[in-house]
């Protein structure tokens, strides 16, 4: 047993309103720079949809993540065997066109245009070349499905559906969608770290944040290819890779990262998970059907005395252990089984979990009029508009079981609270629904409280790092730790 701690995350998709406030908060703090204009360390996608960069989930194309070959876990993109032949040219690298060409507008023309018959316009100007461009796409081009199933149709997850289901899902009257906010997952088995030949990427021992040492990165671009979530970005100006740093200066002082703090829907939770690093390798070799369980088994019980002893032996402080015991993430993931990792079949073991969104049929169109089906507010899952198979492809490595469990439990908690507060559902019926969902009334109350009523301090249980124990006091941190995206010793300018 080798217990380590990780600052882990839960996004409650049922609460996400798709407002992009998180993206803007992140953009303004971290990526409003030359070379980083196109980067969205935090972005919000509409699902079904192709996302950013386009079709990032299509690993037949991008070759991200891990695969099991002859009983060994190997990077899909490249490994020790073949990395030198890919160093001159990355065959699976997404290019600027797969993201989008960042632009601004020629506002000056509005003032300086000569007098004429037409209104002057502000034409889009590329932020890279400075030339006029025709905008072909943006980071959220298929936002809200762009009012059509045109983009949704190319979603790689639709492969899990039958043609009938797909037709049903994409028919315009029944179009259904939810939002998927995405940041770096700060994985337990990060493909980016393992792929970096320079050794620039690393995972921090104390909190599990994955960073790129800017002084060691040489721009070989393996990490961009290897990350299946496409959350490592190449800065075209400095020739270095960059990624979400989970606002570690904030996290180290016990504050929530910018995207978490600014979340309007309060969908984000952050807390410590203790995990057993010895279990990662074995878990990565399990078949797809066992991956959700294998992932959860890596996470250790913070109340188990053996776990606590091992954590202490690894230098994890009492306050961190205490935080792990109060962790909202632990509750959502382990206690309640509500939160699931995205595409766990990539075998990187993300530390960001999603509570899948419910999409009950609340109204249908019949003979040109809208019929509200209040009775079916708590309809069986089979009537849900979003096919379970789709959610299973996204959150369950193709397994419907864990997704079904999470949705059923959420639905049961809703019925239970409806029975208590409105009373139009029989309390016994609600109790039966809870029991069927593997939930007790006490647990339902807890879920309800942490979902609907949590305070700031319940959502974010982040222990401040122990600065007094850091090596800064004794050694030059710039030589003993990596530089990590900020805190440059020299101006971050492009080399000769």
């Amino acid at each position, binding site marked *: 047993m080798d217990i380590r701690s990780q600052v882990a995350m839960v996004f409650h998709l049922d609460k996400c309103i798709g407002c992009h406030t998180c993206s803007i908060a992140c953009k303004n703090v971290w990526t409003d720079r030359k070379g980083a204009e196109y980067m969205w360390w935090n972005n919000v996608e509409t699902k079904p949809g192709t996302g950013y960069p386009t079709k990032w989930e299509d690993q037949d194309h991008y070759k991200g993540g891990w695969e099991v070959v002859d009983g060994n876990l190997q990077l899909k993109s490249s490994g020790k065997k073949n990395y030198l032949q890919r160093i001159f040219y990355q065959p699976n690298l997404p290019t600027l066109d797969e993201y989008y060409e960042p632009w601004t507008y020629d506002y000056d023309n509005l003032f300086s245009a000569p007098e004429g018959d037409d209104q002057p316009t502000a034409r889009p100007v590329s932020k890279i070349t400075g030339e006029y461009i025709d905008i072909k796409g943006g980071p959220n081009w298929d936002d809200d499905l762009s009012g059509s199933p045109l983009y949704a149709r190319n979603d790689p997850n639709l492969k899990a559906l039958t043609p009938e289901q797909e037709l049903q899902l994409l028919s315009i009257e029944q179009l259904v969608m939810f939002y998927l906010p995405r940041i770096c997952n700060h994985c337990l088995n990060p493909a980016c770290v393992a792929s970096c030949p320079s050794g620039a990427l690393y995972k921090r021992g104390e909190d599990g944040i994955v960073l790129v040492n800017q002084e060691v990165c*040489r721009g070989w671009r393996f990490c961009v290819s290897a990350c299946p979530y496409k959350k490592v970005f190449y800065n075209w100006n400095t020739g270095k890779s960059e990624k979400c740093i989970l606002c570690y200066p904030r996290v180290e002082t016990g504050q929530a990262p910018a995207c978490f703090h600014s979340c309007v829907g309060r969908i984000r939770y952050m807390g410590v998970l203790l995990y057993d690093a010895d279990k990662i390798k074995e878990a990565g070799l399990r078949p797809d059907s066992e991956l959700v369980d294998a992932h959860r088994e890596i996470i250790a019980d913070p109340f188990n005395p053996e776990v606590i002893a091992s954590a202490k032996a690894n230098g994890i402080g009492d306050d961190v252990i205490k935080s792990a015991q109060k962790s909202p993430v632990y509750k959502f993931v382990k206690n309640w089984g509500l939160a699931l990792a995205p595409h766990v079949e990539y075998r990187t073991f993300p530390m960001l979990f999603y509570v899948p969104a419910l999409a009950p049929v609340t109204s249908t169109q019949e003979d040109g009029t809208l019929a509200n089906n209040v009775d079916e507010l708590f309809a069986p899952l089979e009537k849900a508009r979003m096919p379970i198979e789709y959610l299973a492809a996204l959150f369950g490595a193709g397994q419907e079981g864990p997704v079904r469990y999470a949705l059923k439990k959420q639905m049961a908690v809703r019925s239970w609270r409806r029975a208590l507060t409105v009373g139009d559902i029989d309390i016994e019926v609600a109790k039966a629904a809870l029991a069927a969902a593997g939930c007790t009334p006490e647990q339902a109350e807890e879920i309800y409280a942490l979902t609907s009523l949590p305070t700031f301090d319940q959502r974010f249980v982040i222990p401040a790092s122990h600065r007094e124990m850091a090596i800064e006091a004794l050694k030059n941190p710039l030589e003993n730790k990596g530089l990590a995206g900020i805190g440059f010793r020299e101006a971050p300018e492009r080399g000769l």
Partner: protein
Amino acid sequence: MLTNTFLFVGYPYLMIVLAILVSIIRYRYTPFSFSSLSSQFLENDQLYWGSNFWHWGIVIVLLGHLTAFLMPGAILSWNANPVRLFLLEATGVTMGMLALLGLVSLLVRRLTHSRIKVVTSTMDVIILVLLLVQVVSGLDTALRYRWGSSWFATNAAPYLQSLFFFNPKPQYVASLPLGPKIHMLSAFTIIGLIPFTRLVHFLVVPLHYLWRTPQLVIWNRRPEKRFNSQSGR
């Protein structure tokens, strides 16, 4: 004579010292500036041909030079058989052509593609032109003066070795034709310019990846556990 002494003794040493000293200073004080400065992200299609042709061609040609420098005798005895000589020469010329093709493609891309122009510095163009001179003069030597691989072993190798052992003997190359002389001088110029250009990327080719653990974990509080493998393969 004095010119030869400067060009083939003074100049090479100057350039080599410059390369070593400035590279160390640059690595020590501005590590952030070490990057391959890849532009694949901005332009993918032309780079496929340019970069692959250039790199594979030049890597194999350089390995050939290195072999002849280290073991000139072996090259000579290999070349004793005309079939083997022809094979070696043909491989060299083919790889040189490949490198030239790639280099021209990269140069055209750099000067014409609007996105690539944005990330092109003066030094990029200078070094590309110098490399062009280098490859063209090398191919010229290979095609016009037979057989380059043999007299590299008899003339260039002992000359380079004499430089290496601080016992310079420029007489080995003093009477060579202009083509090979340009080839050698531009080679020393390129070596001297390494630390002032993007060529530094080949000083940091990540070979250590081969014996590294897949995952890196850095502990802040426990510097003794700095590079600690975590898991994976």
